[in-house]
């Protein structure tokens, strides 16, 4: 068996502008968004008619009809229909995980090139019929004969029509929403509201500046008449953020909440994809290499029994990855930490500075230390752009790769937390 491991190159990325749910993408399906994103990538790098090694992507909010979402999307693009594709799901870690899986196959020589990405919509939500009614219908389907079927169907009550099964943004095991978990984390780590609001202001300011500098010119294709992330508030002031009321405090910290709609990401629709390949493939196709994926790590925490913070998994993943890579937390030129909530970012950073936490929970002799905040999310992040769950990984990878290419050399850290107490992190280098 061939065991040489190759370097995996990031050639480029594409995404559609992200939109707050129930706004401009209200009637757009996951498949439409992902198809447009993949097609934009194919257009940018002239992949028409090319058979890629793999296309891996996923959606967290998925209709049952979309069981082969990514394959159906690929078939709707101008990529060769002989391009294989598959779906995966790891909550908000989907995008980065998809990219890692494609990268792994490239690294091992199984494929030469591939695309990893993700899509999500909460506007076009998959609503199911009431569970009791569903069981009755299934039973009716099994019944033999009209009379038997009618007898089963007579169990349906009008109230069942009024109570569909709605997807919930909450942890099945704890009954709390993600925002409530993040509020608990903010209280545990003592993250003041003002600090969270400041991070949100910075995210919007940095994203606005990046748009002005034309940073996204070759990273975004317009879609449905939208050319800019519509959650971005240019000139957002800290005073405005201070006027927002806490929104996740009722159950977990009544009257003492610090998380508001301004320092938490909104429900968003959008899609992203990243083109990866081996260096030989990139050279053969005359394609530029922006950066390389060198390391990745996944971690999961026991947020249920051991009551670890739901979104603290990246705090565990990063030191494991740094250990394998033989570098320190400070050895990066860029930090891209997904801003699920400003509090989540700040809790993670505080955890890395905390000697007790690093020793007891992360098993480290020394705390990881602080990062240089001026290198954090310098072109804005999820608080400003929005966060279609599975699409954030692709957004971050493409942006960071371009930042490294613009700088010419360097190293970037990606950290993404996910529902279910998981986290995916990676290192990009050039």
């Amino acid at each position, binding site marked *: 068996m061939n065991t040489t491991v190759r370097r995996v190159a990031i050639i480029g990325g594409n995404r559609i502008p992200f939109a707050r749910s129930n706004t401009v993408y209200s009637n757009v399906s996951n498949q439409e968004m992902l198809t447009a994103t993949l097609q934009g990538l194919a257009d940018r790098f002239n992949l028409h008619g090319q058979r890629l090694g793999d296309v891996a992507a996923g959606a967290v909010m998925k209709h049952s009809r979309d069981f082969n979402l990514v394959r159906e999307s690929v078939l709707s693009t101008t990529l060769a229909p002989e391009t294989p594709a598959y779906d995966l799901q790891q909550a908000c870690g989907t995008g980065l995980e998809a990219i890692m899986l494609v990268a792994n196959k490239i690294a091992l020589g199984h494929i030469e090139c591939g695309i990893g990405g993700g899509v999500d919509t909460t506007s076009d939500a998959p609503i199911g019929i009431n569970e009791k009614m569903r069981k009755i219908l299934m039973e009716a389907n099994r019944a033999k004969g009209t009379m038997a079927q009618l007898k089963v169907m007579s169990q349906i009550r009008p109230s069942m029509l009024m109570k569909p099964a709605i997807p919930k943004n909450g942890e099945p095991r704890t009954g709390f929403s993600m925002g409530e978990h993040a509020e608990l984390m903010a209280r545990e780590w003592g993250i003041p509201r003002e600090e969270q609001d400041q991070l949100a202001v910075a995210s919007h300011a940095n994203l606005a500046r990046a748009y002005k500098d034309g940073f996204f010119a070759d990273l975004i294709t317009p879609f449905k008449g939208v050319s800019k992330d519509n959650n971005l508030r240019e000139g957002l002031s800290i005073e405005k953020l201070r006027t927002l009321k806490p929104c996740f405090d009722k159950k977990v910290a009544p*009257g003492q909440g610090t998380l508001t709609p301004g320092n938490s990401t909104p429900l968003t629709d959008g899609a992203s994809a990243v083109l990866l390949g081996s260096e030989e493939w990139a050279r053969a196709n005359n394609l530029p290499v922006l950066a390389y994926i060198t390391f990745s790590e996944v971690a999961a925490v026991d947020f249920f029994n051991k009551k670890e913070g739901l979104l603290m998994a990246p705090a565990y993943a990063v030191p494991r990855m740094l250990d394998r890579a033989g570098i320190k937390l400070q050895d990066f030129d860029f930090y891209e930490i997904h801003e699920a909530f400003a509090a989540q970012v700040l809790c993670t950073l505080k955890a890395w500075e905390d000697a007790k936490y690093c020793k007891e929970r992360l098993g480290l002799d020394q705390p990881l230390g602080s990062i240089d905040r001026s290198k954090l999310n310098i072109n804005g992040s999820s608080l400003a752009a929005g966060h279609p769950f599975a699409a954030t990984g692709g957004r971050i990878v493409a942006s960071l790769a371009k930042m490294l290419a613009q700088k010419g050399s360097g190293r970037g850290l990606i950290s993404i937390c996910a529902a279910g107490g998981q986290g995916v992190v990676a290192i990009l280098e050039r």
Partner: protein
Amino acid sequence: MKIIEVNKLPSALALNLGALRSSSKRPGVVEALPEVTYVRPRVVVDAKRVAAYAKVCGFSKAHGVPMLFPHLDAFPLAMMLFGSRRFPFPAMGLVHLANSAKLLQRIHVDDVLRIEVRTGELVAHDKGQAFTLHARALRDGDVVWESTWTLLRLGVRQPRGEPYTSQLIDERPLSHQADFYAGASIGRSYGRVSGDINPIHLSALTAKFLGFRKAIAHGMWTKARALATLMPREAVAQAEVVVEFKTPLFLPARASLWAIRSEDGALFEVRNAKGDKPHLRGRVTY
């Protein structure tokens, strides 16, 4: 220091009529407050009254006896002081400028307290003559609660005493925490529980007679309502809260609570619905 023991309180109506009659006072220049202390030697912390007070102010059972509760037992003594001939100023028209309260030990239902209210000092204010009253609650000889009220008589031209300074100068920015609703009847509800039936709180009509376009909320109710949200949900053994009253809260109204928290307390303001004008500003530590 003259000490006046009060074993049976006059009715709330009698206290308020006394205050009304005091309008005929013409003090002239007041150089100093008379030194007098009113004492209620035996007051039982009544469970029903604690529950009624907690309900109208928004405290939950978990809070135990709210830290401002002794104010209700001290207030009638202040009313007696205002109505008495020895006190120079008329009661009507006094503005409650600031109120600070300190809980030193936990207070329980059925505690027997000794309540004292004594005159304090004159304080010179831009708008007239301010003065302080000091209240204390003792249990078995130990001070469990203290409070200082700063009141202002408007219009006095050359006030005596040290100049008034705010204890709440703090530049830190506040964030919107919660909203609460002050219904038109809250003045009546709180008046019933506290015994403060000043007509300016009771209805728009009675308030109009005294120069206010609508009824205004009791400052002490607004203060308690804010604390109900800010205090931890458990009975505390020590706490301190300082409040300065700003603009009147006309009823009915929607008010917003703004605060910046630290580990052991919060700097807060109760503002109007829009969030740009403060009704009161305070700091609590626990």
